[in-house]
């Protein structure tokens, strides 16, 4: 039963994959005028233009272009950078690790902060702790992440000198250095998620703490914490799984801003640089890899949700 369910979910991913690749490919179609001219600039020679047109397959019909591009992409060939000549897939995957470390750290921070605020706020509704949590939940979704980053850099790097303002150390090289370099960017990347989780978990916890099974648990003689932990959180967490899946895509996108602020050599910075250099194959590569990651995460959260929710049947 479960495998059939998995298979059906997987079948759903395929049309999504087709449409997303179509969107990524179409980016080159919406360049106004002659893309080769736009990419190379006005003083390009006719020879160079012709060479780029054939490199990008621009001299062929659109559908053939897409087919070729997709066939190559499926084999992991995303072309070469127009700027450095580097192989796009190599460049993207060499930066993938950095971005994943950053996003996972941000996700952990979001969950820790979100759970902390949500639980403290429901202990005593309308107390000062509740107000702090609600204030945080409101502020965190509205504050521009790059401004938050600038404020924290001004405080912790410029004034106090505790944390580096830029750069990144991989966790596999030096754990202490990693923690130091990742703390500020991961917090700024995760603040939005932390606020979202606070809001969502708070309202679903309030709802679940008001239900019959919680009263039963109390009347069995359980004290506050076991009730929250075992009965309240467990049920309140289900909608958070879906939120976490959505947050992943959101954070992956936000790395373009955060990695630029902190000069972190990840995929987000690569995306920004490739636009500034009009390096289209590279941009398409980054966007494609990121959206495929999102599709994978959506698939995983979907499956996870149905495993966690006993009400969902697999046939």
């Amino acid at each position, binding site marked *: 039963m479960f495998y059939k369910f998995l298979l059906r979910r997987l079948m759903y991913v395929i049309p999504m994959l087709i449409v997303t690749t179509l969107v990524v490919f179409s980016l080159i179609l919406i360049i106004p005028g002659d893309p080769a001219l736009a990419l190379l600039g006005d003083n390009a020679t006719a020879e160079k233009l012709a060479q780029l047109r054939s490199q990008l397959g621009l001299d062929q019909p659109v559908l053939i272009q897409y087919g070729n591009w997709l066939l190559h992409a499926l084999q992991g060939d995303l072309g070469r950078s127009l700027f450095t000549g580097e192989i796009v897939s190599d460049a993207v995957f060499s930066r993938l690790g950095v971005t994943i470390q950053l996003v996972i750290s941000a996700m952990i921070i979001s969950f820790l902060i979100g759970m902390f605020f949500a639980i403290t706020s429901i202990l005593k509704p309308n107390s000062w702790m509740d107000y702090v949590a609600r204030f945080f939940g409101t502020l965190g979704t509205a504050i*521009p992440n790059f401004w938050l980053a600038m404020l924290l850099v001004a405080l912790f790097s410029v004034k106090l000198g505790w944390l580096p303002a830029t750069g990144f150390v991989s966790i596999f090289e030096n754990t202490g250095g990693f923690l130091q370099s990742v703390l500020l960017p991961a917090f700024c990347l995760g603040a939005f998620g932390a606020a979202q989780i606070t809001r969502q978990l708070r309202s679903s916890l309030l709802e679940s703490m008001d239900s019959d099974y919680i009263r039963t648990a109390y009347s069995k003689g359980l004290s506050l914490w076991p009730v929250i932990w075992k009965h309240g959180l467990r049920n309140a967490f289900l909608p958070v799984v879906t939120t976490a899946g959505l947050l992943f895509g959101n954070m992956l996108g936000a790395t*373009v801003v955060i990695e*630029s602020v902190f000069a972190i050599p990840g995929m987000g910075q690569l995306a920004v640089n490739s636009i500034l250099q009009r390096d289209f194959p590279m941009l398409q590569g980054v966007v494609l890899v*990121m959206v495929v990651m999102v599709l994978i995460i959506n698939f995983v959260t979907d499956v996870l949700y149905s495993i966690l929710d006993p009400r969902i049947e697999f046939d």
Partner: protein
Amino acid sequence: MQFRIILQRVKRERLAFVSLIYLLILVLVAFFARYIVPFDPEAQDLNQVMIAPNGSHWFGTDELGRDIFTRLLLGSQAAIQAGLIAILIPLFIGVPLGIISGYLGGIVDDLFMRVVDAILSFPAILLALGITGALGVNLWNAMIAIGIIFTPQFARLARGQTLQVRREPYVEAAKISGAGPLWIMYRHILPNIASPIIVQASFSFSLAILVEASLSFLGMGAQSPQISWGGMLHQAYSMIFVNPFMMIFPGAAILLSVLAGNFFGDGLRIAVDPKIKRT
């Protein structure tokens, strides 16, 4: 629901009402900025570089001695324009497509929803960046890109709402009386699904301000001499080791505007919900 009743109900949501007033002032400032600014935004005064706020320069000056208050007022234009364009594009493209898809149903609807789902799985700001990059880096294209990335959300919302009302008696009645599908969608479905779409629009307005600021901060939106709060923050960031205070006001302007949009959206959601009783 009538406009006046909605306004009355928004008035009762104090935070939402204050936010509405803030936003209206912001729109007025954006329209009349060039007439009310105290200084020439490009006038450099190298004797007064990065001075702290004082009586004549209310918010201080930047690294070229330009008045920050003046530039902040003019920066509201980019923010307001981005917010408006980013909701007009989905309202005029996404909503009609969503209604048609939901009303027709069947394979058209299936296909359409696959496309919408696929576009929604892109990290929004990354797609906006890609579209801006392709169209050409400037503020106008950035605003169009933001409008495009918001379109699928509106389409999905309109479609879902249409599914709920298309079997209602008044739609059936219109059908029997011989009304064509386009007339039904325009005259009977659209007015009945408008409330949640308007609420979504107010949240999208504030999100658009946020995304425009992010893109301009990255150098993908407003280009000098165009002024944008995001661009001002980019400039302030390069001065962070010299003078960190320059970043305070543009960032606060973005935060306040986004908060106002969100609060107004929250209040509007309560105001247009017929299930919530008037107290």
